[in-house]
């Protein structure tokens, strides 16, 4: 599905020779939100579902997913609401992302699936595996196991001040949203801006991502991701609560952790999860790799996944 690409895009994509756009795209409706679903591999092959992380999109799997597809799988992923080609929803929440993922599951069938989730996508799947375990055959979590990372050296009062700044900044952001559009830039400019969040990924890869997750308007390139979405946040839920879902998983579970510090990383290490691993669970820690384990080491991680789901 390289579609209607011009010389600039073709040249940028050629710099990542292992990347391959999906073979098929289709649409799934979750309430009034329309989700873009992408597939790699033979349409008749057994399905394997992959959930991307926050501020990513299915196109970030353009190297990893073809490797899984070459292993004999129909790899299905989707752009989460507000990401990639899916609708910019009027409102967002964790529970709406969970519910959206059910619409994608339902669009594939009712048989339990092997599922791979990266980062936020992995955490979403951890919650869903507790709520609806009958949908899962196996689960692979790529650096998306939440722990209680915090700043223990910050006093409660200082934390209160810190939070008040976050609250005001978030509300100011909400006030500015109506009619707001992302700032246009060159293709290279967008890639460099993303490098701040993804400093361990090559600039060729980030330029490639612009051609998939970006849109070229008359005045320049913009990321398709909804500007209403914002890194960070606050609320009564604590991230480490998601870890509680891990212990009870009843299907074979593989966690893959990167150990290198990364701005988007969760900082989880093998020692943080060992005591809560499910009975059929294992964790592989990849040294010298950051948060995007499947992008930094696609062959190695794809082989881990293929071997795991074939057991």
């Amino acid at each position: 599905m390289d579609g209607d690409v011009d010389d600039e895009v073709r040249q940028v994509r050629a710099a990542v020779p292992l990347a391959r756009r999906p073979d098929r795209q289709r649409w799934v409706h979750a309430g009034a939100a329309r989700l873009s679903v992408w597939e790699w591999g033979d349409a008749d092959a057994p399905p394997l579902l992959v959930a991307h992380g926050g501020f990513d999109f299915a196109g970030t799997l353009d190297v990893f997913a073809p490797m899984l597809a070459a292993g004999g799988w129909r790899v299905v992923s989707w752009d989460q609401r507000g990401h990639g080609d899916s609708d910019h929803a009027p409102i967002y929440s964790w529970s709406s992302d969970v519910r959206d993922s059910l619409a994608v599951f339902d669009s594939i069938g009712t048989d339990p699936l092997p599922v791979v989730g990266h980062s936020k996508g992995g955490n979403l799947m951890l919650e869903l595996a507790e709520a609806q375990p009958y949908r899962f055959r196996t689960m692979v979590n790529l650096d998306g196991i939440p722990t209680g990372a915090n700043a223990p050296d910050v006093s409660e009062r200082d934390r209160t001040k810190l939070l008040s700044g976050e609250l005001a900044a978030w509300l100011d952001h909400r006030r500015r949203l109506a009619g707001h559009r992302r700032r246009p830039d060159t293709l290279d400019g967008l890639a460099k801006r993303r490098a701040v969040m993804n400093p361990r990924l090559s600039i060729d890869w980030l330029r490639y991502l612009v051609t998939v997750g970006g849109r070229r308007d008359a005045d320049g390139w913009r990321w398709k991701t909804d500007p209403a979405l914002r890194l960070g946040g606050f609320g009564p839920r604590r991230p480490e609560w998601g870890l509680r879902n891990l212990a009870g998983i009843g299907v074979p579970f593989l966690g893959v952790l990167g150990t290198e510090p990364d701005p988007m990383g969760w900082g989880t290490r093998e020692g943080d999860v060992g005591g809560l691993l499910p009975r059929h669970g294992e964790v592989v820690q990849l040294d010298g790799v950051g948060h995007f384990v499947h992008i930094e080491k696609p062959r190695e991680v794809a082989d881990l996944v293929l071997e795991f789901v074939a057991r």
Partner: protein
Amino acid sequence: MTTTHLAHNQVQLALHQLRAGTGRPLLLLHGLGERAPTTPPDHVAGWPGPVHALDFTGHGDSTVPRCGGYTAELLMADVDIALAHLGEATILGRGLGGYIAILIAGARPELVRGVVVDDGPGLHGGPSGPTEAVVLMPDDTRGDGPPDPYAIVELATDTRTADYAVTFVRHAAERSGLDQPITVVARIRPDWLAGVVDHLGGKPTTVEDALARYAAG
């Protein structure tokens, strides 16, 4: 009643003026599944200034997204959009609106001149800690009108903890300059609200008395 529509991202919020006047406005926030009243309720008759009421996202005359994504924090931002239009205000919230009023009092202490929390739908909310994961689907059989069934499902089950709510109370106390920025008149007190009341202290009072105190302050 006159209605102004205010943009909050893709949502058009309906802000109703129930009574004209001068001075600091009173802003009414409805409960879960309700909508703004069309006339000022009897117990706000003594308020000396104008009286306004907001329809939250998915309620009343505001946009009904019908795709899910509701959080208390989103509704707090709805109120902030209204405050950007009104300026300083005192807030009276029913049920869910009372919880949201506490949040905005802590997040915008320079704009909120007192909050009164009254009984009403959606006061309880969901669990106060980690619980069994469950995916609730909305009752989508009532047609397109308000309230949004996703709002009912998501805002009746959202996590509410006393320490989170008290954080906002503390912000309001430290930065509003008011002796008692939040007054709880609700008789039903779920755990999170009991924590707030424990933190606040103070004597039982009525909506009328609380509003009279904020009007004078």
